[in-house]
């Protein structure tokens, strides 16, 4: 009816020869509208009927052609062989984009089934919801107490947000004191020992500092490296209720002492960044470095004769420095249509054997308690050293505030290291800013 009316309209207003063109134009317009409507209002394709093989999409952040990726892909293949009813599609996402991409895809209803996230990232997304539900599945109902008890309790706690368990911990990371044995030998300085105090650290670093060599490569403006000093001076980032305490007693003293490593002792340089820290150490332009196990292979490949010691005791307080524990785990999306299978995959990827292979090949520190007693792990001095260091690691609650604390601490470090603020004022301002953000 509408069609006829339109034709008549065109016929009347235009000269006779326009009829055909008018018809064609209207047809094209109508078809375009119908096609557009069909495209816009079509429902998304389903994920497959019951009884079909479950298809899992898993996001990882391992580097292309890296040893990590090789082990991961091997684990996925082994899983598929053991579970022929489940197909897995691994997708590599650049590390820095992983979290934001996961948030976006979740908000668009296209989240992967399984994703690898850190405790800090869990703190970042724990409060985000889509249609009133969190982005991640609470894994508590999925695991038996015995399955859960396999994991290091602090690593497991790091995967909790507001009580829920949002990931199965697969690895933990922490800083330890690495040293270049050749530089120590050349300077006639004794290697770091577990009973070292910060006075010993400074004395050794001074003896090792020369024209082309720094005593210790330390990215002074990065808060992750400052946290061990903060805890060593008895300060805390959060109180028992997870409220920020950046200006807690001892924090200003810790910051002054930390900055004095450059200002007074001249054994560190504030121009050192994370990458330059690694480069300086690799090129034997720094005798010591506070670094994680993730860089161990790079240092070995650079031909360094490496030693590892746990972080020293702060001479002023008698407390051992406690680096922050960072934990990675496998999470399952709340949107997954195959949660039981997704949890099976997450458990497989965090199993004893997979963790062991990662540990031996890439020095990823395991979270499976039984691996600490494994003969191969126990015989590996590097893994053993890092495992000992984790015992002194500072446990930080996984909350929204944890994610935000780094920026405020970084700002405080920037403003104090450039002399724009004193340590106490900077930390008080950082704490105020944290509280302001949390109130929003």
């Amino acid at each position: 009816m509408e069609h006829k009316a339109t034709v008549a309209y065109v016929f009347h207003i235009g000269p006779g020869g326009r009829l055909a063109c008018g018809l064609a134009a209207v047809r094209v317009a109508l078809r375009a509208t119908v096609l557009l409507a069909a495209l816009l209002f079509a429902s998304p394709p389903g994920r497959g009927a019951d009884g079909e093989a479950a298809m899992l999409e898993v996001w990882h952040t391992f580097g292309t052609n890296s040893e990590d990726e090789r082990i991961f892909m091997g684990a996925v293949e082994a899983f598929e062989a053991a579970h022929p009813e489940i197909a897995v599609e691994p997708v590599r996402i650049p590390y820095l984009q992983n979290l934001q991409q996961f948030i976006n895809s979740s908000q668009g209803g296209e989240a992967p089934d399984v994703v690898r996230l850190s405790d800090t990232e869990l703190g970042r997304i724990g409060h985000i919801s889509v249609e009133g539900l969190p982005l991640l599945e609470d894994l508590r109902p999925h695991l038996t107490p015995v399955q859960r008890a396999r994991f290091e309790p602090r690593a497991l706690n790091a995967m909790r947000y507001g009580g829920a368990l949002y990931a199965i911990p697969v690895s933990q990371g922490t800083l330890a004191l690495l040293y270049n044995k050749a530089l120590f030998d050349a300077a006639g300085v004794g290697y770091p020992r577990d009973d070292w105090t910060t006075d010993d650290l400074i004395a050794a670093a001074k003896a090792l500092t020369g024209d082309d060599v720094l005593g210790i490569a330390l990215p002074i403006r990065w808060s992750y490296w400052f946290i061990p000093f903060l805890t060593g001076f008895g300060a805390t980032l959060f109180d028992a209720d997870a409220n920020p305490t950046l200006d807690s007693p001892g924090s200003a003293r810790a910051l002054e002492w930390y900055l004095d490593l450059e200002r007074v002792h001249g054994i560190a340089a504030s121009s050192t960044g994370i990458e330059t820290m690694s480069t300086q150490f690799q090129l034997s332009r720094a005798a010591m470095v506070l670094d994680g196990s993730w860089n161990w292979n790079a240092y070995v490949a650079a031909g360094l004769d490496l030693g590892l010691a746990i972080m020293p005791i702060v001479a002023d307080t008698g407390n051992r420095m406690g680096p922050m524990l960072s934990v990675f785990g496998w999470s399952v999306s709340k949107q997954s249509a195959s949660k039981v299978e997704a949890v099976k995959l997450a458990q497989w990827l965090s199993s004893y054997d997979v963790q062991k292979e990662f540990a031996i090949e890439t020095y990823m520190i395991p979270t499976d308690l039984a691996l600490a007693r494994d003969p191969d792990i126990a015989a590996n001095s590097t893994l053993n050293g890092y495992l000992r260091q984790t015992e002194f690691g500072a446990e930080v609650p996984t909350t929204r505030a944890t994610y935000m604390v780094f920026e405020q601490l970084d700002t405080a470090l920037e403003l104090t290291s450039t002399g724009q603020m004193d340590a106490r004022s900077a930390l008080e301002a950082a704490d105020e800013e944290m509280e302001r953000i949390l109130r929003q």
Partner: protein
Amino acid sequence: MTRHRPDIGAAALLLFGATAGVHAQQVSVDDAAQAYRQIQIDVSYAPSDAIAGFQVWYSSEAFETTRDAELHSTVSVADTTDLERVPGDAVFERCWSDGLPIHRDAAGNPVVSTAATEWSCALTGMTPGAGQWIAVVPVDAEGAPLVDPERLQPVVGRTDVPDERTPPPDTRPVLYALGMVALSAIVLLSFLRWQDVGRGRAKSRLAHIYVAPALIALATLTFYPILYGMWLAFTNADQSRLGDEAWIGLANFATVFASSGLWRVTLFTFVWAVSNVFAHVFLGLVLAVVLNRRGLRGRTVYRTILLLPWAIPGYISVLAWNGMLQPDGLVNAFLGTAIDFFAGANSARSVVILVNIWLGVPFMMMVLSGALQALPSNMYEAAKIDGVSRWDQFRYLTFPNLKGTLVPVSLLSFIWTFNTFNTIYLLTRGNPYVGFGEPGATDTLITYVFAVAFEYGRYGVAAAWSVLIFLMLVGFSWLYLKRTRAMEAAA
């Protein structure tokens, strides 16, 4: 709740012998309390000094011995005087005794008092939609079973409670809006066509149909996102509330204007854009004039070399500069220094501007070089005959004739540079910090909006910033065009 009852009974009475005598234990499945992947069992028993705890075994198949089952959990029996009853939300799995949350030891494991006669647990990790065989085995202090582990009588439970899955996002409002935008474009074109046909513009009768696809694409891919962004600026949209936002009027704009660092970041954005455009135009023009000189040998080689920064993907160039400007990078090695160019606010600002100038000059050089080549050579020949100097030729012939190219290109360059993100993000990420909760020293409006949207998750506030940027650019463009037209008219 349970749709398919297993064949085997859901309660088992077990008699077991111990040093203290023979005791009875009953295990039953509470069908009414099932949850996703959880089966609740109720255990009642006669207290005995011999019982130090219970082991819970399970399997998805019938079993009589623990060898054919998997250990699920343990519940200890001990003095609970100093222990606390931990509420359900804080623990990994829920258990009860005496009608209250069960006591927990330091490690969080469930403990029942020695006087207790019953306990319940919601067993986690159960496979949904299938029978689960569950046996509870009392054990002594050494963990040895107090019943014959070869003759267990498991109960069968089953949970069919479905998982809680996020419903697909409600995209209807977006689709309706897109549909309306497309339909409006079609109606507009139909109207224009009707008008043209009515006015006898016969040549244009098909023009609207040819234009339609482009207009519809523009409307849905450009106009709709802009309008959506503007609408977001008046809502409380954030990462935790996207799709469920509410209208809050001008509150986001109030937040923007109350932001510390607003005027600083705006000023730096203009400094950044103006200095870049000036340098791009000036250096581009100089290089174009030099390369356009007659008799210049190796012109193609020079052009190719000068085009390299533009030919290489921008992010690679910027990352290369980032590496070269580090304290142990190539620039410092060349200078014999160890300067941290990114440490100070002013040095970091200078560096990002210089790198962006390096990136942008080749484009301007190519555009102006093309415009120069289009200028008639007889104009210069006549000027030469008249004895006009080279500088005056440039001043009175070249420059005025280039204006038609310079005005739109410099305006475009200003808008592009104003909205440039990669250079700053990859070089400094807006750092160094200059204050708490403020944009960094090298942040421009665009990089700060990115941080507000994707690091702080405040979509509404970021949209308000974006509207402000949009208005700034519209205002600047209008003023610029008005001014340049006035100059042209005066000329």
